[in-house]
Each structure stands twice: as C-alpha cells, then as structure tokens.
C-alpha cells in the first residue's frame, strides 16, 4: 500500500481552507437524509459532528460506551480552550497561534492542518457562547481570558476549572436537540468492536450492547470515529477508566494507517500514585505552576518533612536549569526534568515518586486569601485525594501520561486511509505534532466535529448519491460479527489465574518505564519482547468471569486490554524507529551534554504512518512534512 495523498489544497496558507470550501462537492439538502452516517464516540469531537450532521439533515446513528454522552472524557478538561480572538489587544492573531502550535509541536505537524485549527478557533467561541457555555466574564460582561501553557498572549477561554464539562454540555445540548428532532439516534452503552470494510470503503460497524451483550451490525455510507485518546494504555494516566484504543486499533487492523503512535504527552503536574492499588491519576491544573515553585531535596533520600528542609538544601531544579522560563517550562521539559530528579533518588513521598510544588513563597507574597481565590478548588481536590493541606505543606506531584498526539492517520479532510472512514478529535494524529500545547486539544476536538467534518464528508458523499446503504447480510458484515463473537467467547474460555487489571498494570509499567518520558534503543527493544510475552500470557492466563450475554465489566475491560497489548508493541516500535528526540519523544541517545533534546530534521521531519500486516510486522510509511510558511527552529527555553 502506498501512503495516500494528504490532499492539502494549493495556495497561500491563509486561503487553503476557504479555497477548499469553495471547491468541495456538496450534497443537496433534499438528498442528505438518504445518507446514513455512523458516528462512534460522542465527546466534543463526535458529539459535535453528530449534532452538526443532524442539523444538515443527514441520518445519524451515534454510539458511545458511556451510559450518557455527557460523560465523555472531554468532561475532565480543566484549563481552557484557545482561540485567536485577540480580545486582550495583546498582539494575538491567527498566524501567531498557528506558529505557537507548530513550534510547540516541535515541527512535527502539518502546517495546513494547524493553520486551519487556529483559523477556526475564532468561530468556535461564537458557537459555544450561542449554545450557552458559561465562560468566565469581566465586569463589563465581555469574555475573560487567561494565558496558558508556554505562550505569551492571553488567548485561553475558560469556565472556572470546568472548561471541558461546560464545552461538552454545549455539545450535548446541540446533540440532544437533534435527538429530540429525530435526526440522530443515540446508542449509549454500546462499544465499537469492529469496522466493516466493503470494496475498500467503510460500510458500517460492529458494536456490542454492553447491557445485553448482544453483538450488532450497523450499515452506514460513512463512518466517523471520535473515540478519544489512548493514554490509558499506561494504566496509570489522567484518562478515564474506560478510555480505549479499540476503535482506532480495529480500524488499523482493517487497513487504516496509524500515525506516530508513540507520541504521548506526559503531564508534569498530576498527583503521584499513593500505592499499588492506584487505578487512575488525577491531574492538578497546570495553572498551579504560575505560583507554585517546584523543588526536590538537594540531598537524595532526605527523610525530613519538607517544611523542615532549609532553603539552601532545596533544589529548584527547573529554575536552575531553565532560568528564562523556570517553573513555566513546557510540559515535556518539566516532565523530563522531574523524572531525571526522581530517578536520581531525589523523589519525595512514601514511594519516592514525586516532587514538591510549593506555595509557601506565593502565600508569603500574596497572602493566603489570594492563593485561595486562585486555586481554592484545586487545593480542595488535593485535600480530598491525599488528605493533606497544601496551604501548610507543599503538594506532591508527579508526571502522568495524559494525551495522545498520535492516532489514526488522516488527510486534510480528516479521512483515514480507508475511504469513507473519518477520524476526529484526539483519536486522529493531525494537529499537535510531537507535543500538544495546553488548551489546543479541546479546540481541535470541537472544530473537527463542528466545522471540518460537516464540510468534508459532503465531498465524499456527493460521489455516492446512487449507492444504496450497504447490506448487513454482506459476507464482510457476517465475518466481522462472527469474529467479534469469537473474540468474546475466546476471552471467556481462557479461565486462567490472573485478572485483566493485572495485565493492564504490567503493560502500563513496561510502557511507563521504557516508552514514556524517556526512551532508549535498548529499553525499547526489551519492552517489545516484554509486551509480546505479556500478550502471550494474557491469551493463556487471563481470567474473565461471567458470560457473554449479560452486563460484564470485566469482559469490557478484557476486550480493551487485548487491543492495548497489541498497540503497545507498535508504540515501542514507532519510538524505536524514530531515532531522534523531538517534542515529548526523548531518545536518550539524542541529547546535548546538558540533557537537552536533539532533533534530526534531516532524517525525521516526517510523520510515521504504520500499516498493519496480518501475521507479520507492521510497515512504516513516511509522510514528509514540508515547512513552507514557517522556518524550522530549535526550541530553547533556557
């Protein structure tokens, strides 16, 4: 298979999207209801797409494994959403926002996609406000902004610490309106198990009803995946318990290329695991770094309480190494620096797995009331989880897997390499390169669903006007349904001696250790062996209780972990083949004397797009990245 064309329109970058829109084919309003579209996932990306398609008059079936679309993990985003509105008159514009994202992604993203994201950010805020999203406001009633994550302008819109939930409620309201109008049919508690491809085109999906266990086939003229991120593969992550890679992995196995799967962002300010029972990590908003100072004891293994360690024996390692940005260095750099100190034995807390984030000086300078007004809810959350009072002693924080920049390869139209199969939001690879800037992913999920897909899907469907809905009696549907059925039965039949979580934890530990914040050739090679071994053990020794035709959460988990065990290997291979450091992908072999990442633009200014080979090794394709509009530069935050 050759890498498909990315279909980037000609012309100056600021005209590409309008040029595309002016020339793409349209489906006549009267014909739209004849098209059946299956949307998998109803977070910001999928919920937005389903609503927009419903408004246009298409017939939509929307699926989510959650009991309600409002629970998609978009709900957990705290910080905010970026838009180049320049309401603050601080010199922001679309170009600057575009440049920040390309640079933030360490020059591993597609210029045209990123520019479009910045361009459409402006309309997004208008749409959200019209839906009733209660963004923060100034006294005069206008929208408020703050700055976020390594940029010099204030372009982040927010709704206290709940931006994700409030944006999602706007999306779900729009979706509900279409459900109410009968244009979208919603299938909650339904998990996608396979994509059906007929004659090289997406023809439908196989899903499992998670209450009855029934496996169903649904035909569609086009299939849209918007299933979110897969960082839960690390087991301990800021993702939700149910977050999975099943949809993109099954699409991959049916022929969709998977791009840069090893590009996963590790967030520097999560809470550390408190013990072996830990199931999930809670993010502490990055905004805390505006006032908190990060340090570890200068003496490794110092047993003293942090408040008893004098100033001269504290190592404010970010301020030391990066005097220009200090505690506000970008995520990848802050995470790596923390890991370096923890690995060197300076980690704190009972498991020596954390660093301090200290508000002592901020409280001294601004008073406790000011700090409380800024971060009161976060300090409260910290107290709930750890039982500790961060006004009196430093917080303990640690890096945690957080966001997958990698995902299904898509072209400019967000179509994957399977014709008629689209990928939106975090499950595609499109906009963030090797490192995602804070507050850009809510943006990306929203614009993919609200604005981009509703245009681009018409360009495809317009050519399919006379095609009937694929028949679910087609052998491709029967085979896919049967395979899904068999994989369920096989898991239930193993009857081994270890629970699903056991395997997930071990997989997570392997990847965190060797395919996480820092990677090496030798480590990755051994990780591949270990993942393969673990996969074999899973097949022989997993214990999944219960039956196939009943609510069975253990079975749900097992199906997800089974796919994670395959994806994990590909992630390691991707990291191994990318023999450079870039963004969050840090190869120990490629660093300067003082530990800074060294990129190799000569050989690696490309997207790695992996093709599945049944029974063999995946094949790596390269999409060369052309930087026509920005000049490649070295990131330097020192």
């Amino acid at each position, binding site marked *: 298979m050759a890498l498909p064309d990315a279909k980037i329109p000609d012309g100056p970058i600021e005209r590409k999207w309008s040029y595309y829109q002016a020339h793409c084919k349209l489906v006549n309003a009267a014909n739209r209801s004849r098209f059946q579209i299956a949307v998998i996932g109803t977070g910001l990306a999928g919920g937005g797409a389903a609503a927009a398609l419903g408004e246009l008059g298409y017939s939509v079936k929307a699926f989510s494994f959650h009991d309600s679309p409002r629970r998609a993990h978009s709900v957990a985003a705290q910080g905010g959403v970026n838009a180049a*509105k320049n309401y603050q008159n601080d010199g922001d514009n679309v170009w600057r926002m575009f440049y920040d994202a390309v640079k933030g992604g360490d020059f591993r993203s597609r210029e045209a996609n990123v520019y479009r994201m910045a361009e459409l950010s402006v309309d997004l805020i208008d749409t959200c406000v019209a839906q009733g999203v209660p963004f923060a406001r100034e006294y005069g009633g206008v929208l408020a902004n703050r700055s976020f994550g390594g940029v010099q302008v204030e372009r982040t819109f927010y709704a206290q610490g709940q931006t994700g939930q409030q944006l999602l409620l706007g999306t779900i309201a729009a979706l509900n309106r279409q459900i109410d109008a009968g244009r979208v049919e919603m299938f909650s508690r339904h998990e996608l198990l396979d994509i059906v491809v007929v004659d090289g085109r997406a023809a439908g999906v196989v899903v499992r009803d998670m209450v009855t266990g029934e496996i169903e086939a649904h035909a569609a003229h086009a299939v849209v995946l918007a299933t979110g991120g897969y960082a839960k593969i690390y087991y301990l992550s800021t993702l939700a318990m149910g977050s999975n890679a099943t949809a993109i992995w099954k699409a991959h196995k049916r022929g969709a290329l998977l791009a840069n799967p090893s590009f996963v962002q590790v967030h520097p300010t999560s809470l550390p695991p408190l013990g072996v029972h830990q199931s999930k990590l809670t993010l502490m908003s990055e905004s805390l770094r505006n006032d908190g100072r990060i340090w570890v004891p200068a003496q490794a293994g110092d047993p003293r309480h942090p408040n008893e360690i004098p100033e001269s024996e504290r190592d404010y390692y970010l301020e030391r190494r990066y005097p220009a940005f200090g505690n506000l260095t970008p995520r990848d750099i802050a995470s790596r620096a923390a890991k370096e100190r923890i690995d060197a034995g300076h980690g704190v807390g009972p498991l020596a797995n954390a660093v301090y984030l200290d508000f002592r000086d901020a409280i001294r300078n601004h008073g406790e009331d000011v700090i409380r007004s800024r971060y009161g809810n976060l300090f409260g959350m910290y107290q709930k989880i750890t039982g500790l009072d961060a006004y009196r002693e430093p917080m303990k924080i640690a890096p945690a897997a957080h966001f997958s920049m990698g995902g299904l390869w898509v072209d400019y139209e967000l179509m994957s390499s399977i014709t008629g199969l689209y990928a939106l939001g975090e499950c595609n690879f499109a906009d963030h390169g090797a490192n995602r800037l804070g507050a850009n992913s809510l943006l990306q999920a929203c614009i993919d669903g609200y604005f981009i897909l509703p245009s681009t899907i018409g360009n495809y469907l317009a050519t399919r006007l006379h095609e009937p809905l694929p028949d679910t009696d087609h052998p491709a549907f029967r085979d896919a349904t049967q395979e899904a059925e068999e994989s369920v039965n096989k898991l239930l039949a193993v009857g081994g001696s270890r629970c699903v979580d056991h395997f997930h934890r071990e997989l997570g530990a392997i990847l965190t250790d060797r395919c996480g914040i820092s990677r090496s050739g030798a480590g990755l090679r051994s990780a591949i062996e270990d993942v393969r071994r673990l996969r074999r053990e899973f097949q022989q020794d997993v214990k999944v209780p219960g039956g196939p035709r009943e609510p069975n959460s253990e079975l749900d988990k097992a199906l997800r972990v089974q796919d994670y065990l395959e994806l994990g290997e590909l992630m390691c291979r991707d990291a191994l083949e990318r023999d450079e450091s870039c963004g969050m992908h840090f190869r120990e072999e490629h660093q300067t004397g003082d530990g800074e990442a060294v990129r190799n633009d000569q050989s690696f200014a490309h997207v790695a797009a992996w093709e599945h080979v049944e029974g063999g090794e995946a094949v790596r394709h390269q999409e060369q990245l052309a930087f026509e509009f920005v000049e490649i530069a070295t990131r330097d935050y020192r």
Partner: protein
Amino acid sequence: MKITFRIWMQDGPNSAGEFVEHAPEGLAPDMSFLEALDHVNESRILSGQRAIEFDHDCREGICGTCGVVINGRAHGPLAATTTCQLHMRSFSDGDLVTVEPFRARAFPVIRDLKVDRSSLDRVARSGGYVSTNIRAAPEANSILVPRHAARAAFDAASCIGCGACVASCKNAAASLYTGAKLAHLSELPQGKIENTLRVVRMVEAMDREGFGSCTNTEACEAACPQEISAHLIARMNRQYNWARLKSLGRKLT
C-alpha cells in the same frame, strides 16, 4: 485496615436482590472507595465468582458516572464528594459499610450497583438546549452577560448529572437536576428566549419518566456533590406555574 462491606447484588431489573458480605484483606486508608471495590472484585474473580457491577469512569468527580448509596447516603459520608473521590480514610477500622445502588422508580437496576439513568437524558432532550445551529452565532462579545449572571449560570451548569439528588429524595424527584439545567439556560440572554416552552417541556418530561414530586426536604442539596442550591427548584416551580398561566388556552410552540 479492616472493613466489612455489605454490598447489594441483583442479577437484573426483575430479579430479587440480596446483600453479600466481604471483608477483604489488604485495604489501605489511601485507597479510594472504588479502588476498594476493585479489590473486592479481584478476590471474587480469583475465587471463581463474577464481579460486582458498578458504574464509574473518570474517577475524579466530574463525569457523573459513579454513584452508590453508602450507609444510607448517596455518595457516602462526605459533603460535596462523589463516590469516586471518597477515600477509605473516611472510615474507621472495623466499620460495617453498606453499599446499595441509587434506587428510584426512574432508575431501573441494570445489575448490582449499576442503574439505568437514561431518564435524566430524556428530560434534558426535552428542550434542555438553546435552539441555535452550529455556526449560526453572532460574534461572541456581542452577547454581553453580566458577571453575576455568568457566575450563576455556571454554578447551575456545574451539575454532573449523577442522579444523587434523585437517589437521596424520598419521592425520587429529579427537581434539582431539572431546576439546575433550567437555571443555567435561563440566566443567560441566549437561553432566555425559549424559556417558557423549555420549562413546560422539561417539567412534563420529568413526570412522564416517573420521577416523583418534590416536597422541599432539600435532601437533594445535601447529597449533591456539586452543592447545587435547592433554591433552583423553587425557581423552576415559579417559572412553570407562570408558563402554564401564560399558555392557558394557547399552544406553546
């Protein structure tokens, strides 16, 4: 620490249920409540039993998926805390902890602690939105919203839709949930326009779904992890009565 759990198990909506007891080894005060349930399940599975079903996802108090009744209280003993945010340090060594599903006529049990709350979604779908098409939006700052109104709208909109209000109400009413959605939209100029129709549709949907009627005990407010104020219920009732009065002899469209 040593805790004895009494956990409700019920195969399906129409089966009889019963309590099962578990006193697992190896519980730690730093475990979250759901991690303790994971722990119970692990020992059940390894001894050949099926897992106890419960709903959960974000495990950080924002998605609204989790929720059980713990010792008679929806989401357990702590105020403003979801089940997933509760930690075992809130219990004492030797405690007996009873765990039941959110019970309500409108929340049929799926299995064990898992209930079907789709009735709440159907209430939201009955007009709980602003009728605007995506992109059919004026410049964002052309809609000015006083700061206090934005704040009030946010406070109401912070509802996570968990259903604890219903589970804690002796009549299993969904008035706090519905009142919150109505208040969120009616505080904002964008949402005011359709308020009359919305309030009628949502209140009637609540009745249709089998939620009970509110008798103002405010148990819901006490159980709400987002601390949504029961005042919003009075406001909903006022708006509903007014809307009904206005619409006498007239069809609301």
